[in-house]
């Protein structure tokens, strides 16, 4: 059961003249993430006049509004009223974990050796530790469909590369400090790349372009190169 949200749980402040931020502390936690998700679900169902958009993040949800339709104080009051009371009997919509196939190492994960060396593990141990855990998608940001994942075992934490790579292929799975993530589109980046998924995390031509959303849980599954190629083919790319 989720404890009921009350207005003492968060602070409100403006982000410019057309957005309000609700901040639930400054520490990443599953319970805060759940609360933010409940608010998102609420906003998906009940919008209000002057509502424009919302952006959930680790401990914040930012709501964009039209100040000529609804004024800031009234908006804050209304959000307070609506949000306190969410929780208790509100069940978070259950989602089963999404499996992300990954081909680790070699050409697809050129930094797997770096991570193993840095963490004084064998590459097989790094892979085992990486796919043993279940990860929570805390938020999507930085690039279309890019998931910020929580839950990585700190035994495989590795600092970013000193010089970022000019181009990292879409689907690359990497480690940066205590975080792991997947690059949805080809982009420059400094993460240590340990593998690649054949799934498309972002495809604008799909009905739902982003594969993952905040609140999803995922597991990595190790696949062979043959399986990797097969899945890639089935996904039509």
């Amino acid at each position, binding site marked *: 059961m989720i404890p009921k949200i009350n207005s003492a749980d968060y602070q409100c402040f403006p*982000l410019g*003249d057309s957005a309000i931020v609700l901040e639930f502390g400054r520490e*990443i936690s599953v319970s805060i993430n759940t609360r933010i998700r409940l608010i998102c679900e609420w906003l998906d169902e009940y919008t209000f006049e002057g509502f424009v958009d919302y952006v959930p*993040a680790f401990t*914040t949800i930012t709501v964009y509004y039209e100040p*000529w339709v609804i004024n800031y104080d009234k908006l804050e009051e209304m959000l307070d009223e609506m949000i306190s009371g969410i929780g208790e009997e509100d069940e978070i919509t259950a989602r089963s974990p999404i499996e992300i196939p990954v081909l680790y190492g070699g050409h697809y994960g050129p930094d797997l050796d770096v991570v193993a060396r840095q963490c004084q593990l064998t590459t097989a141990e790094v892979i085992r530790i990486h796919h043993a855990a279940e990860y929570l998608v805390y938020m*999507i940001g*930085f690039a279309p469909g890019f998931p910020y994942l929580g839950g990585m075992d700190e035994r495989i934490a590795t600092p970013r590369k000193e010089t970022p790579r000019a181009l990292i292929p879409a689907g690359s799975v990497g480690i940066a400090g205590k975080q792991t993530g997947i690059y*949805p589109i080809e982009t420059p980046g400094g993460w240590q790349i340990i593998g690649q998924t054949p799934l498309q995390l972002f495809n604008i031509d799909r009905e739902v372009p*982003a594969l993952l959303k905040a609140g999803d849980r995922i597991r990595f599954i190790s696949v062979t190169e043959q399986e990797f190629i097969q899945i890639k083919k089935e996904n039509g790319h």
Partner: protein
Amino acid sequence: MGIKVLKGGLLSTIQDLGRFGYQKDGIVVSGAMDLLALRIGNLLVGNAESEAGLEITLLGPSLFFEADQRIAITGADLSPAIDGMPVGMWRPLRIAKGSTLSFGKPIDGCRSYLAVSGGFDIPLVLNSYATYLNGKFGGHEGRALKTGDTLSFKRNNQPSSGKINWKADLKLYPDLKTRAIRVIEGPEINLFSEESIAAFFTSEFRISTAADRMGYRLEGQQLKWTASQDLLSSAVTFGTIQVPAQGDPIILMADHQTTGGYPRIAQVISCDLTLLAQMRPGDVFKFELITLARAHELLILREQQLKQLKQTIAFKYE
């Protein structure tokens, strides 16, 4: 029937008011840099404000019209001409089939907007016509116009209807020579040293050459945080001023990422985004701190003026 692109210009992209509702998936809003100019342009030709228009940057394109059209050019003065004859801005214009619209010397501002009556026939991507250049989607094939492209009109205009010897009353569009950008405090202003905060509000900043639709990197006093704090990523928006460790502030513009992790020292008020959108690399300006209440007054006033303009124009097209 539509437009044949004889020359694409420096950066000409289809834009609208932005792609909202998908920021939670990390999808960038995009849309016109100078939203006010696009909105007025659309109103002038009798369109809804949200219709797609062409954003034209500094060196404009050459566009051959395959059909009669009613158009309007707003925003920066980039010396528009029809068949070589200079034409006025901020008013509806008739352009005849077989004519070419071209642009010349940039006189004032950075971005001009072309609206056509009825709008361009562009496929909607996630509910918007806006081009997102880095994502390669939206607008015309997700990219800037180039020679040989064609843009279709949604409908062909009745060329002879309605008198069009009138001009928009421009008291709602700011003087582009203004060199004060009004801001309100950002959520992390207290992470900066007193000297940095003072420098931010008193010294001049120059727009560097690292300035595009994503954001403008500024040059001037470097700003320092008092404590190196590991901030958790959170939402950023059009006009957010964030400061990376190196100290040069960055103003996020229309193609900004949805979230960021740098301290946000201030936020440009919505009304002054037009001024910023019309500045060029090398332009120098100062920031001026105002209250949220004042920012709201200004924005509400502007929306009222736009509404009035809309009513006046609707009357003319009746």
